């Protein structure tokens, strides 16, 4: 088996500080924070500290922070919870499948995407509309012009999908609910942070007996690890993004010299650590495997790599080539040598597969 030396997948190992705290957290944070015992009180204190730390890093009130697991549940909670009987959902063509699933059950209107991945603002006349707004796309990293879209739809109820943007892009001033993914700051996977900023606009859409502050019982050690990861990544993100931007520019320059390469979005309008590129007449699965055999892991949005053999709805909505696609995520530990090696591998294998 080939040793993978460069990880460019969207997933990555835990932040080292979070990894350190996880072991200790399982030792001291095993009790139920809701119980009155001494161990329960200690766990409750740890949980409160974690929630306060998360709230501080996200610049929101601690009462608005609702940890959930898995993260995908947050789409239903955060979005469906904003609906009233006559609501129409307005969302983007490049949103996650979870949003499309909610749209399928409700009156909805889809905002189209331009070639650069930006949603095209529309003046909709929908009353009681709920706007689902993805701050940055999970496949391409394209950052939306949230203010312009919000102004065009004039929705009073806004759900922000911050699962990919994390703390890299500030939230809109006005929103109702927002969803973060702990992975975006190198915390544990499958832990989401739902922010309920306007409790008067939100109700728990799951069956419940108690209308008080919702509690979805996430693993306390994972919550503690996430809080530590967030606290540390908050101090590192600026440098990490500056480094990633430089690497991203190197990759874009190299790939743009390859004939018939279709890069999704420009660096000016995408997250610095993400890049999606498609190569005409290349099989995405074969390209991904060939790159992996050189020791580099990447993701792909091509149909041949998907479970359902469907092309990426994001690339299709943008009008970007869906086959021969690779997605590259640049992590804080990525080195110049990793980038050079990946660049050589991609170009070599694209040329080889086209012959």
């Amino acid at each position, binding site marked *: 088996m080939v040793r993978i030396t460069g990880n460019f997948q969207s997933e990555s190992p835990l932040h080292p500080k979070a990894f350190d705290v996880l072991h200790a957290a399982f030792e001291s944070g095993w009790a139920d924070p809701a119980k009155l015992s001494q161990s329960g009180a200690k766990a409750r204190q740890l949980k409160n500290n974690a929630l306060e730390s998360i709230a501080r890093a996200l610049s929101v009130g601690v009462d608005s922070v609702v940890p959930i697991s898995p993260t995908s549940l947050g789409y239903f909670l955060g979005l469906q919870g904003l609906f009233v009987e006559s609501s129409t959902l307005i969302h983007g063509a490049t949103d996650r499948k979870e949003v499309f699933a909610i749209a399928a059950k409700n009156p909805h209107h889809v905002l189209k995407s331009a*070639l650069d991945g930006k949603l095209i603002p529309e003046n909709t006349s929908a009353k009681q509309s709920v706007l689902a707004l993805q701050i940055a796309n999970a496949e391409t990293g394209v950052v939306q012009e949230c203010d312009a879209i919000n102004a065009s739809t004039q929705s009073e109820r806004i759900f922000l999908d911050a699962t990919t943007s994390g703390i890299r892009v500030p939230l809109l001033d006005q929103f109702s609910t927002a969803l973060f993914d702990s992975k975006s700051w190198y915390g544990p996977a499958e832990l989401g942070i739902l922010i309920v900023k306007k409790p008067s606009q939100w109700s728990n859409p799951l069956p419940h007996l108690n209308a008080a502050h919702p509690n979805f019982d996430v693993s306390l050690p994972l919550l503690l690890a996430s809080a530590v990861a967030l606290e540390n990544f908050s101090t590192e993100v600026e440098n990490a993004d500056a480094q990633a931007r430089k690497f991203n520019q190197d990759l874009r320059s190299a790939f743009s010299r390859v004939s*018939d390469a279709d890069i999704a979005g420009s660096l000016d309008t995408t997250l610095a650590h993400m890049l999606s590129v498609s190569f*005409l007449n290349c099989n*995405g699965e074969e390209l991904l495997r060939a790159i992996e055999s050189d020791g580099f892991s990447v993701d792909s949005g*091509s149909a*041949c790599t998907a479970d359902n053999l469907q092309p990426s709805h994001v690339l299709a909505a943008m009008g970007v080539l869906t086959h021969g696609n690779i997605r590259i995520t640049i992590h804080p530990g990525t080195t110049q040598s990793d980038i050079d090696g990946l660049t050589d591998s991609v170009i070599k294998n694209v040329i080889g597969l086209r012959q």
Partner: protein
Amino acid sequence: MKEIDARGLRCPQPIIELGKEVSFMHAGDQVMLHSDDPATEPDLVAWSRMTGNVFDKKSKDSFVITKLSER
């Protein structure tokens, strides 16, 4: 008009077959592509933009491609 039957082929094969045929065509020539792969239609949009050619959807699985560019 020449026809390419790419039904049953998965991406990127229909577009590769189209590219081969188009390379022998002249500006103004047309070819009919039959493909039931779900990626073909979105990829024709991108392919047309990248190669400077155009396509017209005739039915769920059939597309007429007109060569405009001599590349």
